[in-house]
């Protein structure tokens, strides 16, 4: 069997699930910039699935993230967990991409840079938008089959894959051909923690964006170029791809490539319309139940 080439698509997201007091503004809305940026939880399940496929069948695990320069942190986490190669897809021209434009950029990155891929894996959805759209949209652009809501890979051969996937009212075992795109659910596995040895090695990894700021910490190098070469030799340089690297045109990405537009954003605040207070006494409860019955609530 040929060495499997896997591509994990991961997104750095604000941690919307663990809102703390500091993240709330006084008017009751969320202060988005105060939320910590994390590895999208289900993308971790996708990475874990790829790593366990590698352990069982051999192959390489490539991780791509599309995002701002700071998304390099996500890629370092992927390295700590066992990813072989990581890539930062980052360009100001990508800003404002909706799911369609994002899927186009991801597809361009894959076919331009990793054309011999066998399996693309991504999380079912990201917790900031909860759309679950980028996976299927990317599969369509790659013209490959998609298997969504995958819980486990049952069998894998040279050109076939068999998976167990969830449906609305149950589950299915289905088979299709490679290459394929899978979206992975949080019930699939328990992502492995950082591996101590890899953490020690890769915490010094950096992308081109980071070089100017890093240079003072490496007095032995005079220029960012020298530092880049040094990191590259040690396998610590994180490659970055921009619009031209993936052979995309600016009309196809960002705001220009996005058919959807945000008309309005409203923060959720409590209506505070006031409620009728019921006393926690026998009489209070009795009156309350009587009122519900009078209103034909049941």
């Amino acid at each position: 069997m040929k060495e499997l080439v896997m591509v994990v698509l991961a997104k750095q997201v604000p941690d919307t699930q663990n809102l703390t007091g500091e993240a709330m503004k006084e008017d009751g809305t969320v202060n988005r910039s105060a939320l910590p940026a994390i590895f999208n939880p289900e993308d971790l399940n996708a990475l874990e699935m790829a790593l366990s496929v590698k352990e069982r069948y051999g192959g390489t695990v490539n991780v791509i993230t599309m995002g701002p320069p700071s998304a390099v942190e996500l890629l370092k986490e992927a390295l700590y967990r066992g990813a072989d190669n990581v890539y930062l897809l980052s360009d100001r021209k990508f800003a404002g991409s909706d799911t369609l434009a994002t899927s186009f950029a991801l597809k361009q990155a894959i076919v331009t840079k990793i054309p011999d891929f066998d399996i693309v894996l991504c999380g079912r959805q990201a917790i900031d938008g909860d759309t679950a759209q980028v996976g299927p949209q990317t599969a369509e652009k790659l013209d490959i089959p998609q298997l969504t809501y995958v819980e486990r890979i049952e069998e894998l051969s040279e050109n076939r894959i068999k998976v167990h996937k969830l449906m609305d009212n149950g589950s299915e075992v289905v088979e299709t051909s490679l290459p394929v795109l899978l979206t992975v659910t949080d019930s699939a596995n328990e992502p492995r923690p950082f591996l101590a040895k890899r953490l020690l090695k890769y915490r010094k990894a950096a992308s081109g964006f980071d070089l100017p700021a890093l240079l003072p910490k490496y007095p032995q190098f005079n220029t960012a170029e020298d530092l880049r070469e040094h990191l590259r030799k040690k396998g610590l340089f994180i490659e970055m791809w921009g619009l031209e690297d993936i052979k995309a045109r600016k009309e196809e990405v960002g705001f220009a490539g996005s058919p959807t537009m945000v008309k309005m954003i409203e923060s959720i605040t409590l209506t505070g319309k006031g409620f009728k207070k019921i006393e926690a006494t026998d009489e209070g409860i009795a009156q309350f139940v009587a009122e519900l019955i009078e209103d034909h609530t049941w």
Partner: protein
Amino acid sequence: MNGEVWVFAEQDWNTLQEIGIELLSKGKELACELGAELAGILIGKSVEKHAGPLFEHGADKVYMCENDSLENYDTAKYAKIFTDLIEKYKPQIVLFGASARGRDLAPRIASKLKVGLTADCTDLQIGDYKHPDGTVFKKILYQIRPAFGGNIIATIVTPHKRPQMATVREGVMPTPPVQRGRTGEIVRETVQIENLKNIMHILQREKKEKKVNLKGSHIIVAGGYGVGSKENFATIRNLAAVLGAEVGASRAAVDAGFISKDHQVGQTGTTVRPKLYIACGISGSVQHRAGMDQSAKIVAINNDPEAPIFGIAHYGIIGDLNEVIPMLIEDIKKRRVD
């Protein structure tokens, strides 16, 4: 004639899914405002029997795509059929349920047609939109959805591309009234799915009956982290039992292991709109509120008067649920005997 409004009428295991019927209710409203016709899209093997219910729930037309190889859902086949239909008839709006299947299919179609798609809408409206370049788009679809973990509500528009497509969250649109005997036009389409690429082979299907029926319940008694323990959830179950209600839970209660996930109400659980929702020991995070704030009557029982749940409650009982709930049960039982 204006482009039609289309609704994907999902069917599975020989049954029309509830979500398709829910979509017809919103679809009808949109179609009326646009002066357009409402159509249901039926795909499968022997699905003609489902056309009747679609007409009775408001569809003017049903596009029917039957084929023996369509017994089970297949992304590639459905996407091909749907895309062909859209290109032939050019509807202005196409709605899908935000079910596992709708979310598998709709993005594939949108990507093929290079049109916009908004996920998991909780409301849809028709309105005008002024583009930053000054162009005004009349009567387009406002696709309204929570984002950012339910902390914001965004209104999305797709001014330039047609059709405007959205998936709609299950349970947020009311089921339209049945108009017995109402009928409409069936348009039979020949499907072209021979030698298709990217198809999958279904080797096994397992149907899991949902034991918990949150959506179908008029009354829900829900417990949160404040219930305190798995054992204590018996109190919640007891109140539900005397009311003939279903038991719900907040994510915090599910995560703490008090109760199984199929009881979870909220952003990542089920969206409900019962006649009565009794929230016990639930603080009322935005994620939870997003799944129940459309309930006709909300009762909050909590010992923390500052709990956000009181912000959307119609009735509030500030007190220990271990004392309040037994009093409630007692009172309701007493009335039964009387």
